[in-house]
């Protein structure tokens, strides 16, 4: 009887990879422009970083720091696997590579590697739906993701996905040995331009002390025209 109940339950769970495709379809777009604020709580205190990002597809983005004053004008350009940063004070364009990609972005709980990651999860992971649950008053599917390639930053992930809106509400990211490295928890979901968007989420580096980094999307626009010239190294110095 128990075996039969488990088989019936398993039959009711949606296909993990199909679900992953729906998550990607909800958030993916040709272009998007985001204004966001990172609220970082460190051991010494609290501070905020405000950025504006222009994103094209899955492998091109341009980010400009708007605040604080010290970081204002700093720009970052991601082109495929490469990342460059430009600071007006030094007038230098520097490629960030190697171990620096694992460093924290502006002291937050997010690393450059996190920023560099292909946002289309289906490109990186194979998924299996392992259960059903509820979160923020919403029904969720629990998905276990396994990396398709060894070079992926997190070898496995566990996602709690809104069963109807197909948005990730909670996540744990793990190393190859199964150690929990990062967590994220969505605090607010809003409907923007016909899509469900997590506008407020808390990211935590599980290996670091502190109460995490709150990521708040102030504004997001999908499929807006972005000048092609923005995604060039020359635009960093403009």
């Amino acid at each position: 009887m128990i075996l039969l109940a488990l088989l019936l339950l398993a039959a009711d769970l949606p296909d993990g990879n199909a679900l992953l495709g729906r998550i990607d379809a909800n958030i993916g777009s040709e272009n998007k422009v985001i204004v966001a604020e990172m609220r970082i709580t460190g051991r010494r205190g609290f501070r905020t970083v405000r950025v504006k990002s222009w994103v094209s597809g899955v492998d091109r983005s341009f980010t400009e720091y708007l605040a604080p004053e010290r970081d204002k004008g700093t720009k970052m350009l991601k082109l495929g696997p490469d990342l460059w940063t430009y600071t007006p004070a030094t007038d230098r364009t520097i490629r960030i590579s190697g171990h620096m990609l694992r460093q924290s972005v502006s002291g937050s709980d997010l690393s450059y590697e996190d920023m560099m990651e292909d946002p289309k999860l289906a490109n990186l992971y194979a998924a299996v739906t392992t259960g059903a649950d509820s979160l923020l008053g919403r029904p969720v599917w629990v998905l276990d993701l396994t990396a398709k390639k060894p070079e992926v930053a997190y070898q496995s992930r566990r996602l709690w996905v809104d069963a109807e809106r197909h948005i990730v509400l909670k996540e744990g990211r793990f190393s190859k040995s199964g150690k929990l490295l990062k967590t994220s928890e969505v605090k607010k979901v809003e409907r923007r331009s016909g899509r469900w968007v997590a506008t407020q989420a808390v990211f935590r580096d599980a290996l670091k002390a502190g109460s995490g980094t709150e990521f708040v999307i102030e504004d997001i626009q999908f499929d807006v025209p972005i000048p092609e010239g923005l995604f060039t190294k020359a635009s960093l110095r403009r």
Partner: protein
Amino acid sequence: MISFLVKGLLRDRSRSLFPLLTVAIGVSLTVLMDAYLRGVGDSIFDTTARFVSGHVMVTTGARAREGATASNELALLNVADLRADLEQAYPDIAWTERIRFGGLLDVPDSAGQTRAQIPIAGIAGDLSPTGQERRLLRLDRSLASGRLPEKPDEVLLSDDLAARLKVSPGDRLTLLSSTMNGSMSVSNFTLSGTVRFGVTTLDRGMMLADLAGVRAALDMNDAADELLGLFSSGAYDDARAARLAESFNAGADKEDEFVPTMQALRESSGLGAMIDVMLAASGLIVAIFVLAMSVVLWNAGLMGSLRRYGEIGIRLAIGESKGAVYRSLLAEAFVVGLVGSALGTLVGLGFSLYLQEVGFNIGGMMKNATMVMDDVLRARITLSSLIVGFLPGLLATFVGAAISGLGVYKRQTAQLAKEFSG
């Protein structure tokens, strides 16, 4: 009496040569080991104190717990006031502020694009011409090319690192790091010169920068990771450092992770266990030496007694008391011990002097080492070198003769006539 014994020893070399050589070799090895351990210990403590931990170090409680690789976020604030307080409270300690930083060192090409990059670890201190870091870090004698920094934005690189990056004095470098608050920090510096400390751990890839320049780069105004204190005597006194740290920390609020906390070199450098071993090693060597020599000389004495069986028998037969024979054996041992110990001390001092002046280069063995110590290990001769082998040498000879000589009391005088008639 003594001259009679000495004549006996000189004329019958088999009675004195083996014990004398044994004592001399043992004493010379003890003197050499003592001076060598002392020199190596001094080198490790001195280099560690100058580059890593001072004799005592004041840092935040959080940084003391997490170690030197902890984030600059945990640095000390209001350092000028703290330093003034420390200088007033401990006038015989020289205090210096340091910032430790890490990041990516980027070398631009002529178009300002990245030509080379390498992860680095760096130390920032007051490198200005009037600052004491030039002396502490021995920069004048370590300079391999260029000149020492004169402006806050000038830095030094280890010679090996500069060669790997293909940069030379005058070249521009960019440091990509994090500010004390965690923001990204990108700062330009100019390479003023290269240094070679002769300390493999540092020569592998070290950047030395001026405190003012790094404070500006990492947004650490009036902040420092640590305040290093060096005793005016120049020598590390482990007991004193531990006492100072204990009294300094006694009233500290243990709940506050940013409270200034003092650590002795043994704690901050992680060399505690090693210090204990080194302090115990000299005593241990002497103890082992006395024990081993006593056994060897006991054996030598027994063999001597066998060989001198007839002589001792005749002396007893003609009326010399057993006590007098025993005392004469001890007196002979004293003479052998005195001469052997003096000879051994001289030979040991000779080898020690060579190691003190020339040293022993272990640079080849230090390629992957993490301990901060000079590549050339040297011995150090002190006043104790004169007695550390001499007294145990004398003692061992005496103990050996005292044990083996007890056989005199086992001789049955009633049997002597029978023995001689046989």
